[in-house]
């Protein structure tokens, strides 16, 4: 069965880039443009993995991470950041992977395939 990934980012360019990358590798991608949309999508049905941007207006990726992990500890969540410096806080213990957006596509695909 096709694995479903929820992609949360407020940047259209990033959404397009990652959607195409993941879809061309056989994943089904569901998109949310902010934290609120992400929570609505999650309440409608759980994906197999969540790719979550840290820096978003309104509810940040870190807020969403906490809510996701509180309800479904086992659902893998990757945090996407532009910079490395977010790494040191509690979220780094609870996110399954921390990826910088500049990572090469094959690195991201490998990490995703490690989990689902």
């Amino acid at each position: 069965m096709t694995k479903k990934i929820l992609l949360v980012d407020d940047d259209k360019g990033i959404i397009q880039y990652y959607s195409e990358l993941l879809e061309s590798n056989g994943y089904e991608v569901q998109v949310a443009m902010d934290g609120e949309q992400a929570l609505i999508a999650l309440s409608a049905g759980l994906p197999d993995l969540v790719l979550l941007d840290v820096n978003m207006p309104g509810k940040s990726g870190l807020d969403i991470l906490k809510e996701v992990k509180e309800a479904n500890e086992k659902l893998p969540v990757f945090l996407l950041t532009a910079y490395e410096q977010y790494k040191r806080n509690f979220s780094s213990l609870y996110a399954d992977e921390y990826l910088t957006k500049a990572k090469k596509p094959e690195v991201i695909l490998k990490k995703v395939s490690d989990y689902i």
Partner: protein
Amino acid sequence: MTPDANFIRLLENSLSISIVSCTVFFDAKTFVMKGSAVSGDHTLEVKGEGFACILFYKGNCRAEKAKDIIADAVNLYCRSIKEEFPAECARRADLLGSIVSGESIDNVLNELARMIVATPVFDCVGIFLLNEILLELRGLVYASRSESKKGKKARFRSRKIRFSKKSPLSDVMYFGRCKMIDLDEIDDWKSMRDCLKGESYACPLIGMDGKAVGVVVATGGKYSGKAEAILQFYSNLCSIAISNANMRGELIRLKTYEEDFEKVDYVSKDLVKMGMLAATVAHELKNPLVAIGGFAKRLAAFGSDPRMDNYITMIQSEVSRLEDLVTEILDYSKNVDLRIEKINLDKVVNETLKLLSENISIGMIHVSKSIDPEVTVYADRNRFIQVLINVIINAIQVMPSGGDLKISAEESSETIILYIKDTGGGVPDGEMEKIFEPFHSSKQEGTGLGLSLSKKIMTAHGGEITVSNDSSGAVFSLILPKTGGLDD
């Protein structure tokens, strides 16, 4: 503060509600206490031995837990009215007083620790503060009932517990939930085992922004909902004390630096304006300069007088100096567009050194280099060379009578760092922070834009440029992420 006001405040703080009124029926009398709220949406009735109480309030709290806390507090209140046992209530009121009056946080936490072990349910308690950046717990206030009875103060120990992975204790803080945990399951707890071990209650300390600032861990024999409610009550008091102390500290800091902030704001606004002005002026200067230079060149063709030749040469050299300056200012004010490609670090450094070979030999600079010839980076070749030139020229200029220039590279899993080290005595203390600011220059020559532009370029790469001093000079670190932008 009156005892009634203290009582209301104690309930409000520990239950996180706003009270409209609290009516206590005791000893055939009715006592009505008014709270801070004007309207309420809940009532709670609590009956205890010899008393009843009706609480009218606004907010949400778990009724079962709240009943325990209220019963406990009203019981103490009633006893204090009968003057049977006012000591404990007075102690709590004193503690609130010391929080309000800004008593040192160490003393407040100490007293809280002692009060927790004075309850019948807990023997030992530790209050830990969290450093979230380091993911460490430290600054433990520890009290045990046996020591407390001997009149000993709670001990302050600076032990650290580091979180390298999630654990039941980190869950308590991350999710903000009070729960029972087994301390023996926690990594890195060994050093704490002489104080606290085994099954225990843990309650998070919550800061002003709703995030955990620490945790209270208590152990004892009898565990019940009541024990949890009691620990929750005291940990809420701890949270209030810590938030209050932090706010006081922040207020003092803000007041002290108010003037400085204004000054900084003024300077930064000024810098932006100055940058815009400089860019406009530079742009307008460019055309006349080209004309002056061109005409001087043509004039030279007519020259026969050696003095005129000399003057024309001077005009030309001054014009070319001004042109360089204008180009540099324009360069700085432009956005940095990058053409990222995979480049060999060693080769790029060699190329740059070749470009600068004249400056290096005239400056009597001895260059040594240690870079793995296999290392590649993702960068805009020309822009990166521009940064290298800026940094190396800067190094040559701070060594007017010659010196050593060492270039080396270091690779980590995420980044590649290129170190450029000179023997020019280092950056003076006060200059460290300003060195990358535009228009900052300690030298006679130059616009003060070279290093500032370099920073802009490195940042556009997702990298960084930093400077530090070692024993003989300055060390510039050019940090590049191992991979480039999205389209690599």
